[in-house]
């Protein structure tokens, strides 16, 4: 039953990503040219509503549908890994025009060459795992 819920949430997210055009290379390019409000509006309104949702969950101590406490473990404090990792991610995001969610959306939409990006991103993740201890964090 829970698997069905996860699947439905995923389907919904996939539809939103495609229909919002957040999975479009062109929208990402346009965003980095500051030539449209569209992507900023998406991220801004998602974060704006997200802040309200999380503040509400925390202040009212809302439990999940299964009665568990909703715990959000804060990320460890650091600067280097977030900045360097972020920059590398941004370089790839702008070049391929897709971040991890949209890659899978585009696969479903039938753009076969996205498989190259997908497999390479798995490879990139693997390279990080190998080099992790040698990198500044």
């Amino acid at each position: 039953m829970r698997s069905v819920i996860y699947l439905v949430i995923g389907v919904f997210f996939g539809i939103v990503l495609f229909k919002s055009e957040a999975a479009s290379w062109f929208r990402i390019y346009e965003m980095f040219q500051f030539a449209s409000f569209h992507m900023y509006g998406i991220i801004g309104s998602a974060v704006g509503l997200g802040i309200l949702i999380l503040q509400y969950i925390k202040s009212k101590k809302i439990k999940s549908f299964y009665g568990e406490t909703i715990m959000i473990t804060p990320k460890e404090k650091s600067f280097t890994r977030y900045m360097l990792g972020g920059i590398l991610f941004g370089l790839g995001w702008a070049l391929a025009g897709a971040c991890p969610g949209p890659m899978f959306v585009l696969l479903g939409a039938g753009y076969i060459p996205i498989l190259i990006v997908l497999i390479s991103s798995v490879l990139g993740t693997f390279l990080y795992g190998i080099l992790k201890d040698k990198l500044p964090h």
Partner: protein
Amino acid sequence: MKWIYDPWPWYVSGPLMALVMFLLLMVGKRFGMSSNLKTICTICGAGKASNFFKFDWKAQRWNLIVLLGVVIGGYIASTFLSIDTSVAINPDVIIDLQSKGFTSAGKAYIPELLYSNDVFNTSKSMFLLIIGGIFVGFGARYAGGCTSGHAISGLSNLQIPSLIAVIGFFIGGLLMIHIIFPLIF
């Protein structure tokens, strides 16, 4: 119901993405797509190469199911919920892109220059997609999250690390588009 076939405006899409994050929290999970790439590495046996991949991947099975849903969602949206998938970006950007060789700008969902099936015979485009993918995967894990985990979930939780990561995403993106693109296109 005609609106459903048009591109959805930001003020519909953004709040719906926040809803996805809310639903995942309410089923006791966290919003984050790039962790799936790590899980896929582990399933492929990467645990033999690095302890980073030694974890019980079955605990992440739920997220792989979400991911499968995302693929299905992409199929449904493009096949049944869209008539014209061309993206109406800013006309000035279309002119700029066409001068760089992106002739499908304004006429397609993603550029033919990089994503037509010819790419399998075009070594330059193929190379760029591979580099792009490696950077996305490497960067997401180094930064500990991607657009869903840091930009939406992390910023919503007012986490400073996520703010640093998102600033990094933009520095990288701007470097790519404004400094590197003129050299490669």
